[in-house]
């Protein structure tokens, strides 16, 4: 067998063909990667949509693509204000237990079905039973009634101050009643939204392509002829795609952001998450020292938040002592710097509490936050608190949290609406209050928020003050989401979303 000569000739042919394709690339690439027309928008999406069934929609990054295909009952403006969309007006009864919603009468779905009260009810009923990732949004809604052709009524078991907000989110997305529950809608959305999916150009795991729907009822929300969501899971891939002009906008991080800025990309920064310690075991069930509020406050005084932020996240964020977000309404200016960096005071508080030495804080390791944990360990040891970093959290960590496996933990959490945040980290039902800490005083404040209707955000400030005074957490900073875009488009950040709503993009003039 004459391997050598054969191999040699094959190699020649192959290398020649490779060289040829490389040459071909020289002339072909500019055409392929060339400037899109002014009315096309290509976004680097950080996740693939799991199912286009509107009941499977999620929050944040996962909501934006659905907005191309589906209208929601309410529209959430970039600043968080709720405006009419498919609903023209909505109103609670005095007890905040019945929400009456008036609907538009001139809207059709892309399959021709008409949007009316029956369609809205079908969607809300479907959402409650479809086991989607946000099904908890309608937990408080017990029944949906059709009042007349363009009015529905939502009956609530208990008041839910977040319900109107939810109707601008996953729970409010309206799909064609004919398509709900079918297999087809999982791969091809059927909504009343500004765009319809171009099925032929859409490739799973690669891109979803949408074209403007003819005769869409609200041209203000339809600013492009074509929108492509290019799936780019990898941060490096997103950076490369943005700076080489393959996408118009995408989400990066502080480090890759520097590269994008070098390529003259524009930052639309927005604070969405907070990072910090949560001191779960405030009743001292497993770590008695944490029962003493002075110990928890000492932990708060031990951190030089500004320096940590500058070093670890290149200053992209704002140091804070409170867990509620600035845009939530529950934010209190005076709490922002409630616990300044003061190691001497931390030591004094520990001494006063009788814990001058011997306080040990067990923290699980959290992938991606190794640097933060190392700094925390250092700064707490400076005031005499020992930190033991345990094994990394895994896929089972929510069960571990609920099972009281951790007495405290470092994490990054979304900062939502006050009632959402209360049910996430403060109430006795909250996943991130696994030891179910509470007090009559706090519970009264929480109840006030729940029944507070329009005043709920303001009343939530009292909850915020309580948990900050009691040092339930040791927040570090709110973190900037680094959303970058090129100069072909304008982008308005959306509060509480790392990725803006689809309505917030427009072609640059």
């Amino acid at each position, binding site marked *: *067998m*004459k*391997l*050598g*000569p054969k*191999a*040699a000739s*094959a*190699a020649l042919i*192959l*290398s020649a063909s*490779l060289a040829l*394709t*490389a040459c*071909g*690339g*020289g002339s*072909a*690439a*500019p055409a*392929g*990667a060339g400037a899109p027309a002014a009315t096309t928008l290509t976004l680097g999406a950080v996740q*693939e949509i*799991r*199912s286009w069934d509107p009941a499977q929609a*999620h929050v944040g990054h996962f909501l934006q693509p659905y907005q191309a295909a589906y209208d929601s009952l309410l529209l959430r403006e970039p600043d968080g204000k709720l405006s009419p969309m498919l609903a023209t007006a909505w109103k609670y009864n005095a007890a905040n237990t019945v929400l009456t919603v008036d609907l538009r009468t001139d809207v059709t779905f892309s399959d021709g079905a008409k949007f009316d009260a029956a369609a809205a009810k079908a969607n809300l009923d479907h959402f409650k039973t479809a*086991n989607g*990732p*946000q*099904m*908890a*949004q309608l*937990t408080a809604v017990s029944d949906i009634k059709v009042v007349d052709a363009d009015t529905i009524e939502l009956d609530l078991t208990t008041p839910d101050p977040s319900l109107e907000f939810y109707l601008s989110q996953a729970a409010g997305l309206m799909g064609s009643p004919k398509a709900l529950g079918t297999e087809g809608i999982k791969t091809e959305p059927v909504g009343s939204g500004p765009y319809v999916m171009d099925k*032929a*150009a859409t*490739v*799973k*795991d*690669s891109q979803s392509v949408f074209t403007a729907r003819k005769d869409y009822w609200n041209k203000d929300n339809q600013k492009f002829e074509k929108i492509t969501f*290019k*799936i*780019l*899971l*990898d941060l*490096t*891939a997103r950076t*490369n*795609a943005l*700076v*080489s002009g*393959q996408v118009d906008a995408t989400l990066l991080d502080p480090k890759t952001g520097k590269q994008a800025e070098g390529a003259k990309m524009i930052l639309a920064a927005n604070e969405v998450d907070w990072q910090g310690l949560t001191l779960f075991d405030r009743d001292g069930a497993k770590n008695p020292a944490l029962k003493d509020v002075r110990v928890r406050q000492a932990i708060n005084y031990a951190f030089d938040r500004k320096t940590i932020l500058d070093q670890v996240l290149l200053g992209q964020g704002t140091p804070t002592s409170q867990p509620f977000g600035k845009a939530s309404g529950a934010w209190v200016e005076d709490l922002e710097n409630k616990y300044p960096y003061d190691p001497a005071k931390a030591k004094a508080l520990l001494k006063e509490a009788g814990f001058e030495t011997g306080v040990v804080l067990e923290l699980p390791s959290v992938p991606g936050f190794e640097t933060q944990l190392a700094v925390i360990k250092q700064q707490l040891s400076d005031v005499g608190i020992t930190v033991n970093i345990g094994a990394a959290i895994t*896929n*089972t*960590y*929510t*069960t571990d949290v609920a099972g009281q496996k951790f007495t405290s933990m470092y994490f990054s959490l979304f900062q939502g609406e006050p009632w959402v945040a209360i*049910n*996430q980290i403060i109430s006795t039902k909250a*996943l*991130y209050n696994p030891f179910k800490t509470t007090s009559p005083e706090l519970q009264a404040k929480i109840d006030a928020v729940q029944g507070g209707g329009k005043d709920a955000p303001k009343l939530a400030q009292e909850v915020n003050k309580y948990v900050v005074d009691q040092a339930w957490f040791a927040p570090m900073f709110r973190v900037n989401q680094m959303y970058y875009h090129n100069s072909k488009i304008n982008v308005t950040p959306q509060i509480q979303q790392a990725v803006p709503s689809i309505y917030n993009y427009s072609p640059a003039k």
Partner: protein
Amino acid sequence: MIRFILKRLGSGLVVLFAVSVLTFFLLYISSGSIARNILGDQATPEQLAVKEAELGLDQPMPVRYFSWLTGALRGDLGTSWFTSEPVANALATRIPVTMTMVFAAMILIAIIATLIGVAAAVKRGWVDRVVQIGAIIGDSIPGFVIGIILVTVLAIQLGLFPATSTISPGAPASAWVLSLTLPVIALLINGVTGGAQQIRSAVIKQLERDYVRTLRSRGIGEGEILSRHVLRSAAPAGLTVLSLQLIGMLGGVVIIEQIFALPGMGPLAVAATSQTDLPVVMGVVMYTVAVVITVNLIVDLLNGWLNPKVRAS
């Protein structure tokens, strides 16, 4: 020969079965909060229970494994918990992308590594030294770093290639070739340098053997000695190295696909693992094991064909 193939296929099936049992039980033991992962942290215990029943997580483990196995034997690998896409479909659309890349890289590695390895072994001297140094450099740079350098220089600065995949329906064949060129180069550099090293030493070893001296003393030309005798004897070592590289590449290609945003097995495997989408993870593991078994079988057959001594043993 047929008996040999059947025997190897039989043992392959046993391995496949054993791996499936192990993977299934290891994965499901750590699957405590799947319903919570899907429904989010605001879900109530009742909602979690409904979801668990829907996914069959309330059944005992052996029952779940048996139902997965009977499905798998019929070619039904289950449905993704997160996307509701049948796992067999998910694999069928991604395997061609990954395999195109892996096979293109393998063919090029086989040819280039052989040429370089043989040249180094025969010429020795400076050629050998250059190959040796090149091998050390090539081996020490991970494929993904090569990928990032290639993108930065050839795609972003020079604009010769797309920075991430432009493969889409209706795109011309040139879009495929352009999208795959950089990933294939990133994949093959480590393989070429590693392969060339091994082939070089195998050839040198053969060249030092007595039979080569005997052939030379009979006046047979160097070219014929090399192509008819030495390469044939050195081939098993080369093939083994190549098969190991192919198997190793299945791991490397995951990262390369992420960097170049290619819709292959890599993103699927990463997403499924991080979400604990167990039916998909099982599918990916089964695919990987099947590839490894097939590659080993092919290498064994090729070795037997090239070298009768191997067949006899």
